[in-house]
């Protein structure tokens, strides 16, 4: 049975000759020097998604994000003019973190009229302007206009809030996101206001978790025990995994996959709770009406009747996964060190109209966690053994093309940056290169 039509080159991978087909090194996932290079070359220069506009619904709504990878904390706030801005979370007086409660490392959210520093009472407007200095007369020729909060480049795409920590971004946001993003513009992301936000610290390099969720070759094996019956598990295992479509867009990449494209028939084996709540890993069986005449052109690129989901990986660390039954989720992978990162999985549903719909969402969310726990734990096992450096080259199959591409894109950005150019120069990073070179 032909499950998916591969491109003319014979394989997904060979359609992109620059990827090669040879074994690859994961030195980029275990080297502390490379991690330092990633901070500078990637996380301080790329557009990073911090959330959605629904998180700051009103004038004065704000949240903070701890960006350990850039050694900073960011405030995102909606101003009096309703514009969303981002600032470094830093009081200009003596450097105290501006917005925090009991623990400086804990992220905050809320609504306020201004930001007041708890140390000496300096106050800033929602636009970042310094409005008040306690005992101002004690200072020496201070012009308050010179001491506003340090603003960060902030822009919105389809309701997703992005920041860019470089003073002058190499590209505007929409250009950076490129064609892959344009293909899903118009999807009604704003309608999915029912949110489940999961978070975990994972003891593995951030790219290893991205790899785990950008190939489904593992699914019939690692998650075998999750099938409703041993027969169903065995059938999936024997069929293996075959992506419907893979496509690379500059540093970004996507996979389109089969999945639950219709509610299971009565005789099909599904778990009793799935049957009861009409839901499961692929989401609620009964799709909400999104009021869309047709899907954005970038979805279901193979135009397959068995289409189940598309997973879009935006460089560097942000994934949007859109499911056929009209819901979506996002992944963020925030590096903490070469050996660890903060993983966030956020599920977005249309608000339920009744208890049945709410219960279906609960089943989808609970099931998501069961799978993600297995994935997360596997990563720790992988990371510790990669660190042994017993083997330095590993095999990737055609269904793992996106893993191959991520590591290449990351290495291109790093080598491009340390080569003194603004954009990737396409050279291969070598283990000893980046640490001592001037920027």
């Amino acid at each position, binding site marked *: 049975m032909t499950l998916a039509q591969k491109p003319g080159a014979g394989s997904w991978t060979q359609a992109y000759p620059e990827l090669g087909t040879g074994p690859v090194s994961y030195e980029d996932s275990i080297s502390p020097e490379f991690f330092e290079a990633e901070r500078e070359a990637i996380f301080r220069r790329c557009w990073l998604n911090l959330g959605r506009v629904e998180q700051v619904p009103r004038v004065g709504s704000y949240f903070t994000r701890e960006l350990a990878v850039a050694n900073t904390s960011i405030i995102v706030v909606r101003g009096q003019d309703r514009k969303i801005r981002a600032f470094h979370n830093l009081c200009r007086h003596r450097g105290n973190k501006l917005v925090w409660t009991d623990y400086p490392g804990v992220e905050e959210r809320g609504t306020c009229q201004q930001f007041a520093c708890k140390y000496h009472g300096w106050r800033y407007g929602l636009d970042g302007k310094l409005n008040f200095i306690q005992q101002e007369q004690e200072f020496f020729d201070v012009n308050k206009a010179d001491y506003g909060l340090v603003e960060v480049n902030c822009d919105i795409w389809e309701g997703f809030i992005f920041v860019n920590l470089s003073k002058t971004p190499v590209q505007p946001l929409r250009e950076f996101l490129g064609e892959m993003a344009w293909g899903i513009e118009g999807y009604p992301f704003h309608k999915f206001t029912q949110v*489940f*936000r999961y978070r975990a610290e994972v003891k593995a390099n951030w790219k290893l978790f991205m790899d785990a969720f950008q190939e489904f070759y593992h699914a019939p094996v690692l998650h075998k025990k999750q099938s409703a019956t041993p027969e169903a598990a065995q059938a999936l295992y024997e069929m293996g995994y075959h992506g419907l479509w893979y496509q690379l867009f500059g540093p970004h990449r996507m996979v389109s996959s089969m999945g639950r494209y219709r509610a299971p028939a009565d005789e099909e084996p599904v778990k009793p*709770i799935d049957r009861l709540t009409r839901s499961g890993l692929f989401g609620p069986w009964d799709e909400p009406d999104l009021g869309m005449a047709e899907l954005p052109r970038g979805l279901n690129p193979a135009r397959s009747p068995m289409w189940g989901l598309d997973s879009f990986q935006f460089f560097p660390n942000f994934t949007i996964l859109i499911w056929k039954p009209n819901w979506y989720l996002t992944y963020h992978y925030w590096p903490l060190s070469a050996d660890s990162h903060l*993983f966030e*999985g956020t599920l977005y549903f249309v608000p339920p109209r009744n*208890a049945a719909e709410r219960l279906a969402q609960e*089943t989808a969310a609970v099931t998501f966690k*069961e799978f993600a726990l297995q994935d997360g734990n596997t990563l720790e096992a992988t990371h510790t053994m990669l660190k042994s450096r017993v083997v330095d080259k590993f095999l990737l199959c055609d269904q793992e093309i996106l893993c191959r591409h991520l590591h290449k894109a990351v290495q291109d950005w790093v080598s491009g940056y340390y080569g003194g150019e603004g954009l990737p120069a396409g050279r291969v990073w070598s283990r000893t290169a980046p640490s001592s070179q001037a920027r």
Partner: protein
Amino acid sequence: MAHQLLPDEFADLESFAPHWVLRTERERYAKRLASSMEQMQAFYDAAFPRARAAVNYLNQFELDNLPEQARNLLYLLFSLVMVSFPVEVWKQPHVPDAGAAYLDLVEEPGP
């Protein structure tokens, strides 16, 4: 009964309510890990056959305006979903192959 948690129609599940009417996923997940398979199986066996009736009962209300006992019934159903993987699939409270991995639900919608 001094204080009845569930609607009269579901009095047969009342004995489970003090243990399984839990407002957050964090509490439900902790309860699952702290429970024996016998405890979860007993809850599942009692609640599962009543779940469809419970959903039908709850569907008569507006979701964001549930009476307290009805809301408790929905929390009880959330707990049924929570124990379903251990009972139906894993045969153990923990997710197999998940070791010390954790995943906290830091923001969840109301009932």
